């Protein structure tokens, strides 16, 4: 009986790993401002894509947010920061993004995890007019807005399915 339980547990391990990487639905408790503020100009990114310290850096420099002034009133800023930090990615899995250059906010496309996941994507795709950079998740992950990143949902610019 114990052996059977162990076997079941071992078999389900890789499945769990896949499910976790594909399923990026927003954790419960997102303040309405998270969608209406962050989600207005870009996808309301899953909090687990940056570690807590990097989210704090992002939220401390909103007046210079990748060239935009995205500053918020302090109560709104605080409630969004608490949600991001409370649901942040695990440092050992993700790695820090760190500032790319002095004064710049950490990019969630700069973590070791993100780079590993996308190492097969040619830079030409990132520069494509329909993509405009690696932070435009929904350009290829067609269900990104719903938090689903399954490989079979990926459509590259030009219409090719990733799996084909």
């Amino acid at each position, binding site marked *: 009986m114990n052996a059977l339980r162990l076997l079941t547990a071992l078999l389900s391990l890789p499945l769990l790993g896949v499910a976790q990487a594909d399923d990026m639905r927003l954790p419960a408790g997102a303040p309405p401002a998270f969608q209406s503020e962050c989600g207005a*100009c870009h996808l309301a990114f899953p909090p687990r894509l940056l570690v807590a310290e990097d989210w704090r850096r992002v939220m401390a420099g909103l007046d210079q947010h*990748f*060239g*935009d002034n995205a500053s918020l009133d302090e109560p709104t800023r605080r409630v969004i920061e608490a949600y991001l930090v409370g649901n942040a990615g695990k440092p050992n899995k993700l790695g820090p993004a760190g500032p790319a250059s002095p004064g710049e906010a950490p990019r969630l496309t700069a973590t070791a995890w993100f780079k590993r996941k996308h190492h097969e994507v040619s830079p030409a795709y990132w520069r494509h007019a*329909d*993509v*405009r*950079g690696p932070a435009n998740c929904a*350009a290829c992950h067609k269900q990104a807005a719903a938090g689903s990143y399954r490989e079979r949902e990926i459509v590259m610019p030009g219409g090719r399915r990733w799996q084909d």
Partner: protein
Amino acid sequence: MKALIPVMLGLFAVAAQAATPNEILAGYRAEAAKHNPRYQPSAELGAQFYTRLFSASAKMPSCSSCHGDDPSRSGSHVVTGKAIGPLAPGANAERFTDPAKVEKWFRRNCGEVLGRACSAAEKADLIAFLMRGR
């Protein structure tokens, strides 16, 4: 009765959140008329304003940079590529129905694109244009 007054004021404030594009336009028109009593909103000036190239931002020089040349169709954020729903209320019933949201985005986008605040007349002209269509 006195105790009820703050409650009633509160209800009024909540109700005041919902507005029509016409009401929001009327608000900016009244504000502009304080500076120029003969002011009338001009859809024509609004159309010119919508595509005018300002010099504050190289990436987003005009409203149409992100909202698209035709505001009755979807646009795309020029930096992030995110789709932006139509700005014209005729094509997108959510637009210009929440005065606080309208003010927030004028504040943010005017600062970004023009490098200054927009005047009440510019806002009224723009809304007149967006309500008329191209």
